[in-house]
Each structure stands twice: as structure tokens, then as C-alpha cells.
């Protein structure tokens, strides 16, 4: 009689221990996952901010440097491509993440080419409207760098947690998958040089 009681008590304690472990691990993974999604939303925000700036920028540059058609078309196309690429924090795969990053990096490249071209047009450079757009673009590139870094930090924390034993077992049961990082492509994390 007493023996069964002890056994039952032990089973209850063990079950409770397992439950607590499951609960805390699962909840911590959910929290980290949410954090990554939140940071990803910020990344998308700042990229959107840049995309919103571009039509204005292109229009302003056109007013002074009509002949730089090639550069301007390059930007417009790169923007269209980057804007068409939307990925969700939930269904991030290495492939679509890479495509997203490539499209955005192409736009970054096109913009820095524009900023080099602009050097040849002193009137454009001294235009108040253009100067303001330049300042906004510079700030946006800075924001992109910051939010990408924040996203990477959050992702790293998440990945580290779901890959560690014994949480990795739970993570595979519940479908928590490793998320991709931003990689520093040459020049992509550096704001285009904006000189006055």
C-alpha cells in the first residue's frame, strides 16, 4: 500500500518535471521565434522606406541629369525587383532569403552608382530638394544596417537555442526550423558614400 503510494508520487513528480521542461522550452522557443519575426518586420520596414524614397529621388535626378538614363532605369528596375520580393518570417528558407538579399543588394549597388554619377552634376548636388533626399537616403541605409544587425542577433539567439541539446529534439517535434542570416556582401552593409 505504502509502496504504491510512493511509486505514484514519483511518477507524478517525474511527469510534472517533464511537463515543466516541455512548457518552458516550448515557450522560450516561441518567444525567440516571435522576436525574430518582429525584427524581420523592422527589416522589411526600412527596406520599404528606401523603396518609397526612390521615385522621388529618380524624378529629382532626372530634372538635372536627363542623359543618365541608364543609371536611372537600372535603379527603377532594381527597385521593382526588390519590391516584388516579399518573404514571411514564418516561411523563410535559405533560397528565398538569399533571393531577397540579392535583390536588395542589387538596389543598394544601383543607388551607390547613382551617387557616384551625381558627382558630375554640381547644380544637382546643390539643389536643396536633392540634398534632403540624399540625407534621407543616407539615414535609411544606416537604418537598414542597424535593423539587419538586430535581425541577425535575434536569429542567432533563436538558432542557438533550437540547436542545443535537448531542446533540439523538441524543436524538431514542433517544427522550429533554423532561420537564415544576412551575410555581409561586399559593400552591402556600407551606406553608399554620399559626399557633398
Amino acid at each position: 500500500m505504502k509502496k504504491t503510494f510512493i511509486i505514484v508520487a514519483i511518477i507524478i513528480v517525474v511527469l510534472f518535471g517533464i511537463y515543466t521542461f516541455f512548457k518552458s522550452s516550448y515557450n522560450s522557443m516561441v518567444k525567440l521565434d516571435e522576436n525574430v519575426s518582429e525584427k524581420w518586420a523592422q527589416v522589411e520596414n526600412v527596406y520599404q522606406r528606401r523603396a518609397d524614397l526612390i521615385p522621388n529621388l529618380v524624378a529629382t535626378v532626372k530634372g538635372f541629369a536627363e542623359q543618365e538614363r541608364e543609371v536611372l532605369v537600372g535603379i527603377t528596375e532594381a527597385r521593382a525587383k526588390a519590391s516584388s520580393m516579399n518573404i514571411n518570417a514564418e516561411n523563410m528558407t535559405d533560397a528565398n532569403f538569399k533571393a531577397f538579399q540579392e535583390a536588395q543588394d542589387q538596389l543598394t549597388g544601383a543607388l551607390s552608382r547613382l551617387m557616384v554619377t551625381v558627382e558630375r552634376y554640381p547644380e544637382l548636388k546643390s539643389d536643396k530638394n536633392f540634398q534632403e533626399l540624399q540625407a534621407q537616403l543616407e539615414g535609411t541605409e544606416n537604418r537598414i544596417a542597424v535593423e539587419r544587425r538586430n535581425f541577425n542577433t535575434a536569429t542567432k539567439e533563436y538558432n542557438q537555442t533550437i540547436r542545443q541539446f535537448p531542446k533540439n529534439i523538441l524543436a524538431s517535434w514542433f517544427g522550429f526550423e533554423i532561420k537564415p542570416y544576412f551575410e555581409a556582401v561586399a559593400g552591402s552593409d556600407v551606406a553608399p558614400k554620399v559626399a557633398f
Partner: protein
Amino acid sequence: MKFLSDKHLIKQLANLLFVIFFLRILVGAPVLAQIPQKPTPPKFVNDFTNTLSVSQQTTLEKKLVNYNDSTSTQILVVLISNLNGQNPSDFAFALGDAWGVGQKEKDNGLIILVKPKTNSSKGEAVIATGYGMETSIPDALAKRIVEDEMIPAFKNNDYYKGINNAIDAVINLASGNYKADQTEAETSPFLFLISVFAILFVIFIISASKNSDDINGNGGSGGKKNHNISSFLTGLWLGSLGSRSGSGSWGVFSGNSSGGDFGGFGGGSFGGGGASGSW
């Protein structure tokens, strides 16, 4: 023989684990830029270059402490002689995050970073806005402050004027956006209850030890020990009381010393807003 090779394998595995462990420490180490240590007591004006005179620093510090007291907005001024090749803006954001300039929920911190011009390197000026300051000081306006208020004065080697003008411009733009919280009202009832219990507990211990002294008469080490414990507890309690009132978030005003007049940085963060320029 089999046993030996097993042992060998285990040893190799252990070595491997050791290496992995250290690699992880190396890789995991934050790639944080070299950010100067937060000064203690915290100051708003941090001149690591000795460009500003002491009285200039005091004047600016006073202005910024007053501004922090009335608006909770924290404006940090940093003069640094060497950025170690980092992008000045990145440096400013990293510094702001590391020191936590601005209040935590409002992110209303702002950094004015200046790297004075030297013979071998050009000067850099940055205004970095915390997330909460981005609306009142958009990048284009920050750029204008850098180009119109700061750099012209810096070109004349008048660093004080440039910084002071920038502060005035920022204060002007941000006016009315934030108000300082009334921190006095924030004592929670829970804390109050705990203090009451702590007081009662101490009184109880003291009276108990007195009783035991009485009972023991001239009684030996037992009573003495009890008394020691009670005075220790009283000391502990008084100590915690002291530290609690000391760390209150309303800065204790201590006249005209040049630092530590505010309650410390609030943990605000920076998202890349602001502008920079060089000369």
C-alpha cells in the same frame, strides 16, 4: 589493444570538444566596435579629446541635465579623437545602444558625436537620433544641423559654439514632445508591505535577543551571538534602505559638480536615424 585505442579516441574527442568550445567563445564574442566605457558617474558631456575647457563642459552639462530633468530626453555629447576606422554613424549608434541613452520606452536619446579634425584626418560630425527622436528630428533636419550649425563653427576651430548651437537646434526641434515622468509616485504597495514586514521582523529579533539576554543573565556567548545577529540584520536593513533611496531615478541635485547630476542613462536604443558630415 582495443581498450587502448578507445582511450585514445576519447582523448581525441575531448581535445576536439575543447577546441570547439574555444572556437565558439571566439566566434560568439560580440563583434562590438570598440566603444569607450560608460563614465561613472554618467555624464552627458564626454570629451575624450580635451578640446573643450572645463567651464565649457560644465555649462553644456548643466544645460543637458536641466533638459533631461524637464523632458527626460537625453542628449549625449561625445568628442573622440580616434574612431579606429569605423564609420562614424555606426560608432554613434553602437555607443548609444551600449550606454542606453534615452528612456527605455521612449527611446528619446540623441547623440552628438564629434571627431575633431587633425592634420592627418578629416573631422567627422554625427547626429544620431534614437527611435523616439526620429519624428521630431528627421534625417534631413539632422543633416541641416550638422552642415549649417556644426561644421561651419568647427571649421573655425570653435568646437564649443558648434556643439552648443547643435544642442539649441535639437532642443528647439524636440520641444514639447516628451515630458519627464513623475517618478516619486511609483513606490509599489508591494514594496511598502515588504518594508513594513522587514521593520516588524527586525523589531521582533531585537526584542527576542534582549529577552534572551535577560534570561541568560550575565549569560555567556549565546546571548551575545543573538545580539550580533540582530545588529547585523538591522545593519543590513538600514543598508538596503540607504541604497534604495540613493538609486532613486530622480537625480539628486548636487550643485555645480560637472557630472552625475542625473539618474543615469535610461536604456534607450538607436535604429540608425540621424545624419553625418565631415570637413
